[in-house]
């Protein structure tokens, strides 16, 4: 390829990179500016100094409606929702995937396709019945309601992930172990699970990202003390009391995005695999 062509190629790629980085740059710089600097300066200007005041405010004193305790309580609610929901849905997915590939029975393919529909269904369709059911179960005001919803709605995708992964583990491994007298659970623990590290990572990260970022269930099914971080952020930004503080909004947005960004940069490989697993088979 000619040198000039390569130059154009790199230029275009760099411009694209700027397009993706720009909002992050704007968020970061805005969050460390003072409101005076924001009003008088320009969107892209580099901050003259670093002020962490907006960050402090976003974390524990910004108003999110009538309550003024920042994002902190929402952040911890999200942690309390995400941890059990991710662990439970991953475990269920692993065992389901194991059965649906290594212990197939008559009708297991039908069961799988029926569960698969849960990945594609518009969640709006379950909102009304679910809110009634959670009400009967007395779970509408606690984080456990959201944990339940996320586990129930996550089983479909976790099962799909594990199933697709386990298909590639040779059946002979399981058959040989059966001949040696190993049973269902023993094979799972001793043979299948030790081979599952990559798919466990993929599923963990996928579920973590999805549940952390969820807004729909969070806004519909949470009580006043169980709202997740996305709802907190949205309330903070849309609260119209007093002067609009864009630096606080941006700091809050970064705080809300930090955990998933962290995971993305630490384990990006698995994140991408998760994204593509549902789409491109394998």
């Amino acid at each position, binding site marked *: 390829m000619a040198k000039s062509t390569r130059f154009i190629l790199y230029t275009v790629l760099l411009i694209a990179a700027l397009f993706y980085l720009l909002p992050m740059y704007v968020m970061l710089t805005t969050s460390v500016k003072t409101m005076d600097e924001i009003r008088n300066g320009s969107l892209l200007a580099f901050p003259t100094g670093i002020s962490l005041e907006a960050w402090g405010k976003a974390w524990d004193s910004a108003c999110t409606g009538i309550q003024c305790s920042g994002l902190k309580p929402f952040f911890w609610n999200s942690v309390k929702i995400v941890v059990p929901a991710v662990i439970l849905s991953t475990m269920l997915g692993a*065992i389901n995937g194991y059965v649906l590939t290594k212990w197939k029975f008559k009708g297991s393919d039908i069961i799988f396709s029926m569960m698969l529909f849960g990945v594609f269904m518009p969640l*709006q369709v379950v909102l009304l019945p679910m809110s009634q059911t959670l009400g009967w179960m007395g779970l509408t005001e606690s984080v456990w309601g959201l944990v339940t919803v996320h586990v129930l709605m996550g089983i479909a995708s976790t099962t799909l992930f594990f199933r697709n992964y386990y298909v590639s583990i040779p059946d002979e491994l399981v058959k040989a172990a059966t001949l040696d007298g190993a049973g269902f659970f023993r094979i799972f623990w001793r043979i299948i699970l030790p081979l599952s590290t990559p798919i466990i990572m993929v599923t963990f990260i996928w579920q973590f990202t999805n549940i952390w970022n969820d*807004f729909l269930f969070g806004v519909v099914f949470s009580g006043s003390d169980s709202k997740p971080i996305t709802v907190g952020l949205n309330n903070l930004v849309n609260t119209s009391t007093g002067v609009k503080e864009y630096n606080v909004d941006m700091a809050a947005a970064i705080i809300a995005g930090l955990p998933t960004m962290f995971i993305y940069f630490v384990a990006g490989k698995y994140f991408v695999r998760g994204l593509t697993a549902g789409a491109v088979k394998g």
Partner: protein
Amino acid sequence: MATQEHSVGQKRFDQWLPKLVVAPSFILSLIFIYGFIIWNGYLSFSTSRMLPNYEWAGMVQYESLWQNARWWVAIKNLGIFGVLFIGIGTMLGLFLAILLDQKIRVEGALRSIYLYPMALSFIVTGTAWKWILNPSFGLEHLVQSWGFPNYTFDWLVNPEKAIYTVVIAGVWQSSGFVMALFLAGLRGIDDSIIKAAQVDGASLPRIYWRIIIPSLRPVFFSTIMILAHLAIKSFDLVMALTNRGPGYSTDMPASFMYTMAFERGQLGVGAASSTMMLAMLAAIVVPYLYSELRGYKKNG
């Protein structure tokens, strides 16, 4: 004899144990997916308003849904957003994937940069773009300060244009993902086909246009499927970026459903609108699922 009986018992045990293990998930899925779909469907044929009730009302809720101007706005917006979001997202993703596939030195870093928005919540994306597109301090202000005092960019607060800001933010968030899908597809193409074409004297753009892009058909198929699916379900982005406004000019079916069912106390209309969403998704997804499952059977 005893050992044989034992092994028969063992065999029987092994036969029902796997079924028992998937049973809870299966039953829960039956109830919480299919049961709830039916339940929701029933609500859409009932007289429910503020509270659910089960008095049969026929098509009343659907009639009021399709007579609702706001629902038509939502459908129109879904059309605009869907076409642009899928079209631009696919083209941009494919374009970047092809460029990245030219043995680029810093490919890994660029890939991470293109893809990181996908790790963010749509609420975070919406908040960021709301600030950037804000007319008083954002992009408009910036360009004005560059010496174009008459420049206006007020899409965010202009009811005619606000839906396009949702497209911008949506494409920003999702196009990197499309890039990753296409890049994976490109990497799966056999190099020898390309080499053979080069030997025949075909130029690189021609090879891409005639050989490589057509062979990516399955990736196009799943990309469009995924983006269409995201478009129909898009809720968070609208809520964070425009909060359905100005007025209800950027309402989409998902946010319409939320408004009716959880803010306006119109449960029946809400249920009817979510049933319509299910029908739209099913129209796209069922053929896709069908072909996927056929693929599964073929492969194993």
